[in-house]
């Protein structure tokens, strides 16, 4: 991957607004979001309380977000230029 190490930006669109997030191409989405202070990746479908990455191993299912409209794991998915990440209401 030739573009690794490249600083890029992507968009995080949530109920509190749209934010441009800095990241490094290829790094996990959670890492870039967390450095920008974004911990809330969505809400519980049961009680609406905030939800964020918890196990980082693909077990808890809580870090799932929509990346360009498709569900993915923020702890695993790679940061790509110009992508749009939106919260996923789950349960």
């Amino acid at each position, binding site marked *: 991957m030739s573009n690794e190490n490249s600083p890029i930006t992507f968009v995080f669109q949530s109920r509190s607004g749209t934010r441009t997030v800095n990241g490094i191409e290829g790094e996990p989405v959670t890492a870039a979001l967390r450095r920008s202070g974004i911990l809330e990746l969505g809400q519980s*479908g*049961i009680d609406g309380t905030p939800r964020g990455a918890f196990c980082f191993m693909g077990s808890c299912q809580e870090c799932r977000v929509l990346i360009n409209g498709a*569900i993915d794991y923020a702890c695993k998915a790679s940061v790509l230029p110009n992508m749009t990440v939106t919260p996923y*209401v*789950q*349960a």
Partner: protein
Amino acid sequence: MTVAFHESPVIYDAIIIGAGVMGATTALFLARAGLKVALVDRQDMFRAASGVNAGTLTLHMTRAQLIPHAIRGREMWLNSAEWLGEDVGALATPGLSMAFTEAEEDLLRQRASVRQNMGAPIEIISAEKAVSIEPGVNPRLRAAAYCALDGHIPTYRVGGAYARALKEAGITLIENAPVESISSVRGQGHEIRLTGHARAIHGRRVVLSTGAWLEKMLGWFGHDISIRCLINQLVVTETLPPVMGSVLSIANGLLSLKQFANGSVLIGGGWQGEGNIRDGGTRVIPENLQGNVRLAQHVVPRLNEAQILRVWLGLESETPDAMPLIGALTPDDDAFVVGCVHSGFTSGPYMGRLLAERILGADPDLSAFNPSRFSPSSATRAQL
């Protein structure tokens, strides 16, 4: 749960074998009439069909002859607080059965008309009308059958509600105790041996309500009835924004689709999995998973946003004529059966109550369900 045995063995007035909706309802009404009742299950209560079914209350999918019973069963679910002691969350909704091809439309009209004759308030409506009632359905449908009396229940709430009602009624619940044998003991009714229990239990009457496991036990009473075991597939999605408000099905009856209050969508309809009741293991057939889910997505296109959360299989029992078994198994009127009811969850509580009434001396019309109809030699004796 275990039972403490005292010096002299207890003789129950009735021992019900099979703790699902029908057996537990029979047990409940017998106990409330003052009988001393034990309820036995091979595993934990409500863990077979009664605990894992789709929770559909339907007149579209039930057998036409059972419509009157399904209507009464549905009413019981909606009023569960009155007779069960708590509200299990049953929700009344309309039901729409849809046709997408000419052949399906013919089938839809035929099935609807038979059901109308049996008292189901079903009418054929146009595609436009169907879409106005249920905006989420595929507008390519040709026609729909509309029934005002459908609905659904979050099945998971039912088992706990029954457990509390059974305890309240003073019923002895014996779980994880497969029945090894049932034999007659003069003056003491039936002696029932249970795996894992050193001492047998005794009952003046016995009721078989063991669903898919009925065949062998019916044989013990001389009824040679072949019970087919259906292995029905169910699929549940993660929560979605509202995409439907009614119970949806298609003309041939092979889809049930509903969205629960929490937003999850349940996809059923009796697509088959693999397995057998002896080994207990069941397995999803990938082609049937795909077929069932494709059908659901065709009917409600917005399901393309859904995530499949879980797939499982539930066992349903069926007699050779697909009609229930409800009634006496012996001329002495001391052994009974209730089961093999198509769409059994809808009618289940009513069927269980009917058998309890029959045992308590009333005379409900159970002639169409007489288990002796399959065994010509014994047909006359059991009717006595």
